[in-house]
């Protein structure tokens, strides 16, 4: 520990200047981040529509594991992944038309994606927020995101409703054809059998009537489903119980939402300063522990410097192998130099 403390003392001014620079820059950046960050937040109450009002209550894809809030939050997060959604959001704000060319647009959308945040606050409560440099833009972004989400959900609901209705209509048409056919068979049977019926004939007639009754019940059920498929989404929309905005996004007048990024900046600056200082001390201690020159030999007392052998420069052939040449001089046979140089 001693050498490191000694090095730290030796470089205290440099360390102080470096720490002041790094930490100071970090603190300034954090302050700037805090004072120029405005977050707008909307609080939303969500709940699932009753199964009776669901578009298709038998749909196996309808999840029951997630809470209503987390389901809506994950829907938001999925929508944020789509550039088209973000484009629609931006189009509803003052930023409309500022996205620029394709490359700039991609960067801008990625930036917006990072700033939009959905958070579940409870089983039925969630918040949607946008953090930006401009308070009014932040509010506009939240409002726009909610509006576009509503639009998308409504569109999806209409599409799902028309698909389900189409399916039910086809099933209804098929059932109606079946019912007509069975009705015709019953009437033909009645026309062809005036007198008392045998057991076999009675059984056949009962079968036909039973089949006709079943098809008619099925037709009634299908008509009910068609009505439900058309009316349920409309009822959900009208009631507004599925997605209620409790607190609208506001235009903040004081900085908000910049505490975390500012704290992160401060932490990074502190850590970077500490790491740089540690590196400086470490490198300084290592270098100080090398024999830097004649002056440092004094640190080896009682051993003393007797003489120095100067560094031999380079000649035209590159670095000179001094020992090879000395060996050639001393043991002049042709092999001496090459033997030494080979090692």
């Amino acid at each position: 520990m001693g050498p490191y403390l000694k090095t730290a003392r030796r470089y205290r001014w440099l360390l102080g200047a470096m720490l002041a620079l790094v930490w100071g820059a970090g603190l300034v950046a954090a302050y700037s981040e805090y004072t120029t960050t405005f977050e707008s937040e909307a609080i939303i109450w969500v709940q699932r529509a009753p199964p009776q009002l669901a578009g298709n209550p038998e749909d196996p894809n309808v999840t029951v594991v997630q809470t209503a809030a987390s389901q809506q939050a994950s829907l938001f997060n999925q929508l944020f992944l789509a550039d088209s959604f973000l484009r629609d959001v931006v189009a509803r704000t003052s930023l409309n038309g500022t996205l620029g060319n394709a490359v700039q647009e991609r960067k801008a959308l990625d930036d917006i994606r990072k700033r939009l945040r959905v958070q579940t606050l409870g089983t039925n409560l969630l918040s949607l927020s946008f953090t930006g440099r401009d308070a009014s833009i932040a509010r506009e972004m939240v409002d726009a995101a909610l509006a576009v989400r509503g639009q998308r959900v409504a569109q999806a609901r209409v599409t799902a409703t028309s698909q389900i209705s189409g399916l039910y209509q086809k099933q209804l048409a098929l059932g109606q054809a079946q019912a007509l056919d069975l009705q015709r068979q019953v009437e033909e049977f009645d026309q062809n059998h005036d007198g008392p019926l045998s057991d076999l004939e009675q059984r056949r007639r009962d079968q036909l009537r039973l089949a006709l009754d079943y098809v008619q019940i099925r037709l009634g059920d299908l008509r009910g489903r068609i009505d439900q498929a058309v009316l349920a989404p409309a009822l959900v929309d009208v009631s507004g119980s599925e997605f209620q905005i409790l607190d609208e996004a506001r235009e903040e007048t004081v900085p908000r939402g910049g505490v975390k990024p500012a704290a992160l900046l401060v932490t990074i600056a502190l850590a970077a300063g500490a790491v740089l200082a540690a590196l400086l001390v470490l490198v300084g201690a290592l270098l100080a522990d090398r024999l830097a020159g004649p002056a440092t030999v004094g640190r080896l007392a009682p051993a003393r410097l007797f003489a120095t052998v100067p560094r031999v420069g380079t000649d035209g052939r590159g670095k000179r192998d001094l020992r090879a040449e000395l060996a050639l001089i001393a043991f002049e046979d042709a092999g001496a130099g090459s033997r030494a140089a080979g090692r």
Partner: protein
Amino acid sequence: MTGAAQLTRVFEGLASRIDASGFRSVGFTSALSGEGTTTTALGTALSLAALRDETVLLVDANWLQPSLTADAGAEKAGGLADHLATRGELAGLLRWASRPRLAFLPVGDRAVARPSLRALSSFLAGKVASHGTVVVDLPPILAGEAFVLPWAGLLDQLFVVLREGATPLPVVRQALARLGPSATPQIVLNRAAVAAADLAPALHPVRV
């Protein structure tokens, strides 16, 4: 000035200080390998041979990596180890280098003997003494402490070669501590960026 003279001039400062200090036997070691010990020993031996009007014996005592022996192509020849094991007379083991007044003693068969205080003492007091100067190339202290310590108390001066800007000081301190309090090695700073002329204040006064 010839190329050889230019090269040996690199070690002139060191050789002059050894000469001025009156050291007759010097050894070169280091804390770690790669510090340039062998090069310094070889260069110093060449410079001393040119400087002193007497023979210089260069001894390869690097039991771990006998590079000088390999440079001289004497891997299979007898040498110091054989002499310490009393398997050969010194005169028969010496090789005269191509430079005047420079003799070389290879490491020899390292399996037959290890350097011990007694054997080295009699080695240095024996016929080796007839050579004006003995320059010994030793292995790094931390890797081959057992091969360095016996020499430390017998040589006039043990030099620890350190490479400027590369050798970690804690490692050097550890190596110096291994040598013990009896040996006071001196430092030879290798590959120094500062010109020798600028070092006068840093160099301790030499014994004359």
